[in-house]
């Protein structure tokens, strides 16, 4: 557009002399590195929002435990060992620059680490809580507004169809509103609340909704004597390898082949995301006694569910039951609103973790008891025969982590009340200065029922899966990294869309070359083979056949001058099932630069995919704390412009405009989100005020 041309001319004038460093670029590049392959039809934005919570609280390097350092996915086992050794031998770190003195921490790693850590060398702050809060720099309010232009079908007038039925429509306005308040200090306290209304949801006050559709709040204090952590409100728990309790950071297989394999014992974490399921609402506390950390918790959540009421009250034992639990959190149409907060789920449990004096051994036992208050009876199909049915569930698990020389062994074994077992075990090791390796074996019985589990696996849930994973990383020089993994898995029972026990494999190979600090080049190849039902099968029995997917990626990042950034990316894929092969392609160009108080990010992308199987997921830069990983599907263009402006030292604003334009299409989107025409435009505005 003309604007780009004019901005470019303005930019080429002398303003460039101001070396205004680009913020958040490292976080973006890091997330891009970490989560490079997506192909499941999951809402990735939500997943990354859950992970990003981890990053809104910078870790204090002087107090961080091994688990907490591991949870950043940046440091290798050897680097963590060296950091802890340095702390032990030299006492508390004085400043962040001391990181350079630690053996094995090169400048690249330090730069990756910087956004997520800080060094707090003040004496323990003994002032009253309110005074501390008033002075705390990490204290803000964030407001966000989003809107899609072009009328989605859900917002049009409902016209009765041929049989006289009136189709469902969204009840609320197309605006998306979000408000977040947070004040926190690592290892000391955290308070906050979040509220959100999705597009199509109403603002009402009734017995299920207080104004906005979703509210979340928490209050946490830490390190008060023997009480390590007391949290009220919304929280998540992460223990062991996540077979019983996992805080939902599903960092599975991806470009980072080593550091994401082992989960970390993080205990109680406050919840401030807007994912409407996957958290506990109640209270939790951790008490430290000698070498033991004892955690207990209780939660009482209202859940969205499809409640089936039995009309015939004369029939014996006619009980209402739930046919399915809903996790999307949308309450836009009358049907969706009718499922809101229908049942009360209660959870109670605890964990005891033992840490040996020399920190080499960590062992724990976790128990979780869940009561839905009403029986969950899924509609029976062939593939869900062994899934959970009933009202209550109990899961018990034991986990360990043992460090021997340069090898970190870990494992967790859990059993659910059905008798099903779940097992995860493996090791992560720095075999030499240049080679790192990770290995993991997992086995989840077809009747292993653990609702809050998120251990390593191929499936999104830990059930019905066996597999071996092997990951390697070789760094011959600081500038060159080779990473690869090979995962072989099998599913002993049927799955949705796979009507027989099946198996598959996946492998990835990636080269990262950074000739200088400002340039990064990546090449990646991934191949995945999984069995699926044969498409267009016309026999009585469904036969399975293998579906082969190949993804190729080439990226070049160029960070000239600290306030100018270029990224060129080409990715393509092929999908082969039966005798049919389809392809997809996307070429993406990003230009980001900073001028004075402005920061502008823009993208121009062109994509061409033959079918939905070849959709190209591409990470997009979005306003702070929001994530955008849309799937480019069809034939068309995508661009966005994101502008960030620092109004004052305490106020930042963002404005984002994005557009998808399809070629040869009469509509864009599907279902009630369908828009007539071939263009989808969206605008987002955000303001953050530091208090």
């Amino acid at each position: 557009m003309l604007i780009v041309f004019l901005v470019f001319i303005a930019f080429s004038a002398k303003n460039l002399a101001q070396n205004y460093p680009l913020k958040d670029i490292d976080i973006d590049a890091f997330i891009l590195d970490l989560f490079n392959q997506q192909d499941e039809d999951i809402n990735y934005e939500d997943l990354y929002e859950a992970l990003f919570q981890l990053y809104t609280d910078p870790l204090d390097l002087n107090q961080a435990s091994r688990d907490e350092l591991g949870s950043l996915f940046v440091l290798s086992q050897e680097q963590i060992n060296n950091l802890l050794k340095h702390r032990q031998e030299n006492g508390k770190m004085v400043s962040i620059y001391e990181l350079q003195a630690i053996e094995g921490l090169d400048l690249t790693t330090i730069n990756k680490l910087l956004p997520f850590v800080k060094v707090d060398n003040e004496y323990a702050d003994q002032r009253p809580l309110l005074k501390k809060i008033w002075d705390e720099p990490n204290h803000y309010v964030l407001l966000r507004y989003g809107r899609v232009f072009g009328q989605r079908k859900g917002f049009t007038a409902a016209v009765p169809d041929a049989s006289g039925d009136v189709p469902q429509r969204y009840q609320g306005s197309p605006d998306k509103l979000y408000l977040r308040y947070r004040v926190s200090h690592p290892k000391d306290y955290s308070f906050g609340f979040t509220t959100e209304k999705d597009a199509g949801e109403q603002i009402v006050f009734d017995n299920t909704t207080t104004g906005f559709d979703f509210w979340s709040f928490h209050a946490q204090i830490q390190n008060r004597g023997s009480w390590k952590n007391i949290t009220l409100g919304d929280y998540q728990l992460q223990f062991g390898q996540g077979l019983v309790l996992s805080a939902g950071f599903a960092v599975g297989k991806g470009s980072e082949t080593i550091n994401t394999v082992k989960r970390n014992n993080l205990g109680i974490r406050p919840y401030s995301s807007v994912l409407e399921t996957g958290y506990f609402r109640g209270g939790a506390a951790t008490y430290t006694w000698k070498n033991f950390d004892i955690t207990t918790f209780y939660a009482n959540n209202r859940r969205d569910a499809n409640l089936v009421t039995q009309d015939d009250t004369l029939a014996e034992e006619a009980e209402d039951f739930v046919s399915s639990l809903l996790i999307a959190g949308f309450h836009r149409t009358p049907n969706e609103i009718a499922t809101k907060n229908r049942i009360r789920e209660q959870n109670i449990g605890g964990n005891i973790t033992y840490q040996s004096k020399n920190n080499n051994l960590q062992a724990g036992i976790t128990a979780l008891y869940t009561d839905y208050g009403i029986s969950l009876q899924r509609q029976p199909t062939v593939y869900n025969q062994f899934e959970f049915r009933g009202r209550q569930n109990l899961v018990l698990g034991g986990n360990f982590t043992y460090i021997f020389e340069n090898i970190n062994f870990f494992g967790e074994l859990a059993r659910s009340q059905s008798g099903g077992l779940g097992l995860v075990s493996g090791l992560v090791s720095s075999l030499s200065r240049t080679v790192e390796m990770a290995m993991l074996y997992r086995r989840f019985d077809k009747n292993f029922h653990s609702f809050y589990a998120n251990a390593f696996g191929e499936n999104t849930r830990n059930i019905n899966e066996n597999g071996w994973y092997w990951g390697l990383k070789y760094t011959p020089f600081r500038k060159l990294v080779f990473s690869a993994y090979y995962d072989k898995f099998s599913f002993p029972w049927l799955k949705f869309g796979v009507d027989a026990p099946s198996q598959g494999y996946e492998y990835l190979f990636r080269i990262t070359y950074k000739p200088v600090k400002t340039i990064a080049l990546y090449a990646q190849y991934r191949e995945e083979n999984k069995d699926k039902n044969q498409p267009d099968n016309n026999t009585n029995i469904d036969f399975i056949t293998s579906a082969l997917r190949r993804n190729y990626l080439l990226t070049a990042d160029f960070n000239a001058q600290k306030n100018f950034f270029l990224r060129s990316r080409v990715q393509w894929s092929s999908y082969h099932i039966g005798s049919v092969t389809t392809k997809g392609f996307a070429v993406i160009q990003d230009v980001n630069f900073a001028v004075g108080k402005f920061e502008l990010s823009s993208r121009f992308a062109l994509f061409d995919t033959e079918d939905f199987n070849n959709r190209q997921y591409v990470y997009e830069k979005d306003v702070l704390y929001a994530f955008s990983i849309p799937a480019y599907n069809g034939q068309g263009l995508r661009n966005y412009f994101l502008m960030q402006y620092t109004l004052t030292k305490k106020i930042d604003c963002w404005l984002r405009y994005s557009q998808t334009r399809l070629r040869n299409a009469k509509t864009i989107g599907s279902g009630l989100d369908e828009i007539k025409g071939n263009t989808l435009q969206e605008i987002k505005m955000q303001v953050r005020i530091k208090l």
Partner: protein
Amino acid sequence: MSRIKSYTTLFCLFITYFTFAGGDPVPVGGRSWGMANTFLTLRDPFALFNNPAGLSEFTYTSAFATFDSRYGVSGLQYYTAGFVMPVRFGTFGVGFQRFGNELYNEQQIGLAFGKKIDLVSLGAKVNLLQIGMDTFGAKRVLTFEFGAIAEIIPKKLLLGAKIHNLTSAKIADYQDERVPTVMSVGFSFRPTEKLMLNAETEKDIDFPAIIKAGLEYEIVKNLKLRTGISSKPYINYFGIGFSPKSLQFDYAVRTHPQLGLSHQISVLYRFREKTKSQTPQNQ
């Protein structure tokens, strides 16, 4: 007889791979065509049409003209003329391009600006495109281009990118006919001053992606040989360039598997050089 020839031209337009909806980005210069149009990282005055970011680092003002004939069919010719002038804060270029004959023609006039900042060059161009057809009249539309070149290893490894028709300029409502949007990304590897190896990918929104590879070698001073290949359609390119004093002549020939030979010839004149040396500043 000439009517038949003219209609043959029109017919050829529909079977030729390169020209379709009009306003396609057509590279110019025997140098580019000799290397299978792996032009993204080339810094010479022809970059006015090829990649506006290439309009940078010039110390001379120049003018050029090119002629391209395809498959021996009249009416499928391209003529271009361009004028490039460096100023204090960058380089400007003005160019004119014409294709076709009185039955069907495309004319384009464009203004480009390029600038080098440290290791990155950026360029942008605005074009006024006119498509005219006998008895149908003419249609005018504005298009924009944007390009970038980054020196990853200065003078040895370069990365180039270009977007043609950022705004999806519309030609007609019928069948949503638009000027094609094309994105290209590519590398250039120059191990020595005499040798250049390029590889690029180009994606037109309406067609599958094309991969191109090209090579240029200076066998003796001021004499360069070029060759290249591109995929689908599989075409071989050959070129030769000769630059005596202030002039530069480039000739390229290419072979299309079904349609035969096409030729491009270009002439470039450098007005004055600010540096003492007489060697051309092309990179």
